[in-house]
């Protein structure tokens, strides 16, 4: 029975994907016809020749599909063919004022699935190239991002979990710190960034700080909640055994609260991964967030979407790792 459901769900997933891609393909497909030649009348030819345009150039331009009006302009500006070539070629100059009938310009449409597929393959095939400070393979950039996340997140866990314990075990602390947590928790990473840049004065440390501050809250609140809600009979048993507070915390409360703490850590890693992309988009330099910004800055939507897909995959893997950890500490009452 379970197997049957699994098979059906897989089938449904694939169908949804296929239908989605087909619709996407139909919406973005532009048939590649190449330039369509333009026929010039004798009168038009004579006009151009009268403006000292060379006959072979006229033929070449017309074959490239440049309209007469533009040829006339080129002739009256005294632009030689070599000047046109220096300016990037006749095709690029042939872009006229758009009207309803004009074909979409290259790059002005949402990329088609084939384009994305091509870029995705190119990216995966060569993940570790270095073509300069501002252009490295996605493997290297992903490494930068993961490293920042790892540092910021570890620091965050090192602060949040002990602090969460303290808050969870002491109602007085809980009440005292609660207002601060409530105010700081909803602040966006994008708001922290400029403040961090200004005060820390180092963009690398600022990125790490922003990850730290944003992944702090879920771990802190979850740990506190888990510790505070450990079944009181267990704590009472520990008391009757005259265990010290530290021993109680480590042998009774920690294992009991572990699933809740890990849940907090799982939420935090997701947030850290969200934050790093935003932080790197803002600061630039290195990392997968910078890649997204760089491709967007060049208005290369296809490569930007590839970067986004990869961010999604890595985020999913991080989440899956914590899901395993969650299963490892789960217990049945």
């Amino acid at each position, binding site marked *: 029975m379970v197997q049957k459901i699994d098979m059906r769900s897989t089938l449904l997933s694939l169908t949804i994907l296929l239908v989605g891609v087909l619709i996407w393909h139909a919406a973005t497909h532009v048939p590649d016809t190449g330039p369509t030649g333009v026929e010039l009348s004798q009168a038009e030819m004579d006009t151009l020749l009268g403006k000292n345009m060379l006959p072979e150039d006229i033929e070449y331009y017309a074959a490239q599909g440049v309209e007469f009006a533009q040829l006339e302009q080129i002739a009256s500006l005294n632009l030689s063919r070599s000047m046109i070539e220096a300016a990037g070629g006749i095709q690029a*100059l*042939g872009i006229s004022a758009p009207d309803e009938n004009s074909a979409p310009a290259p790059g002005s449409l949402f990329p088609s699935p084939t384009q994305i597929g091509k870029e995705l393959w190119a990216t995966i095939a060569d993940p570790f190239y270095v073509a300069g400070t501002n252009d490295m393979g996605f493997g290297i950039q992903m490494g930068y991002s993961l490293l920042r996340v790892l540092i910021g997140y570890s620091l965050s866990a090192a602060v949040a979990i002990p602090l969460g314990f303290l808050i969870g075990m002491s109602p007085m602390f809980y009440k005292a710190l609660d207002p601060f947590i409530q105010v700081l928790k909803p602040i966006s990473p994008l708001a922290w960034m400029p403040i961090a840049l200004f005060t820390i004065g180092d963009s690398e440390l600022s990125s790490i700080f922003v990850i730290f501050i944003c992944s702090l809250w879920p771990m802190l609140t979850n740990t506190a909640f888990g510790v505070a809600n450990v079944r009181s009979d267990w704590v009472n048993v520990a008391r009757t055994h005259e265990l010290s507070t530290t021993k109680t915390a480590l042998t009774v409360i920690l294992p009991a609260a572990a699933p809740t703490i890990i849940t907090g850590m799982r939420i935090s890693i997701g947030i850290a991964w969200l934050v790093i992309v935003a932080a790197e988009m803002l600061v630039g330099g290195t990392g997968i967030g910078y890649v997204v910004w760089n491709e967007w800055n*060049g208005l290369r939507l296809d490569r930007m979407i590839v970067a986004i897909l990869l961010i999604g995959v890595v985020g999913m893997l991080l989440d899956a790792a914590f899901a395993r950890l969650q299963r490892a500490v789960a217990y049945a009452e």
Partner: protein
Amino acid sequence: MTHFKDPFNPNIDVWNECGEASESPADPYAGLSKEDADALKLRAKQSLNAEVGMARALESSVMQGLFKTDISRRAFLRSAGVTGALAAVSTVFPLTSLQAMAEEAMKNLEKTKLTLGFVPITCATPIIGGHALGFYQRYGLDVDIVKTAGWAVSRDKCLNGEYDGSHLLFPMPMAMSLGIGSIAQPWKVVSNVNTNGQAIVLANKHRDNQDPKNWKGFKFAVPFEYSMHNLLLRNYVADAGLDPDRDIQIRVVPPPEMVANLRSENVDGYLAPDPFCQRAVYDQVGFIHKLTLDLWKQHPCCVFGLSEKFITENPNTTMALTTSILEATASAETSEGRVAFAESMAPANYLNQPVEILKQILTGVFPDGQGNIKNVPDRISFMPLPTQTMGTWVLSQLRRWNYIDADTDYATLAEELVMTTTTRERMRAMMAADPNLTFSDAEQDVYAPVDIQGREFAPAAAQQFIDSQPFSRTVG
């Protein structure tokens, strides 16, 4: 490296390529006294050292200034002898001290590994192309250029000391020095990396509405508050009778987002740097309404800035770095240079843009998005000398719109912030050292009044000028 032609060798032609003077013998040292031949051989050996090359080029231009032709130079050397001539010429012209200066600077670079910031726009052509085409290496500098996501981050990284120098907007070093919009830290405008190079772009639906008088309610985007873009746009609409603070909305938007916003009609237009003006045409979402050079010919735009601290701590590195940037700027101005720079900047490491857009911008042959092809060779221009007039105009306009909140002595302040004299000296020395380098702006009067949108602006009368302008926020 080409074979070194010693201007002190009487046997060879140095300047004329056509060999109009008498034949050069196969052995360049034929018929010379041993002492002279040894002196020349030593000089040839030294010249293989790149550090000496600069000084040798300088000598060559001095000799050319003295003798004009190879014929008279060779005649003089034959009669005076090489060692004698060396001594004689150095009394006329302190060659040795100049050589020593250049060589010392190259020898004693305080810092060779440098990090410069740039924002990916064509204004930074000399800084980017300088890296791609190897201008920095010539002066023994190992420069890393880092792409920066926006002007605010650029500013922060400059103030943090993460960048040794940076591509900045002309008003930024002034704002940074005065501490408006940031903590105060003295920065200098070293040279212009470009002039012109901006445009006003409007969404396609406004093709029949190109009179700024009718733009009430328009939403415009500019890349940064302390920018020429903002100041020029405000000036433009104010002259048309619109109050830029009340009748239109000016938003600060990163340039790549401008194209997307124009497509979705969130903004009606923008005054932005290229490539994002031509990009709007390429993507068929907007058209070029006006190039900013039609508002002010050779207006400043972006600069290369260094902090005062860097300049005082690293005088030799500053000299080498400025020289390489100036050289790249001069090279970008030439017509061959324009194509080479455009091609070098297209990869993802630099501008990450289609090469034909960059070529259209740099050569000035472009479609304007209204069905016309234009030919404007100085659409973007590379005139490195920052003038006091430019500095004064910017400062006084910052005052006009109340970014600076007290009337100041603009002229004196501009003197302090813009390194006109230093840059000009550098340019002259470079022209003396390399006859191929021409800086057409090196000899202009830096206090000359300029014509901005049909009104004459004289730096001496800056305060009266802004007081007489419409919508001035200087009063009250």
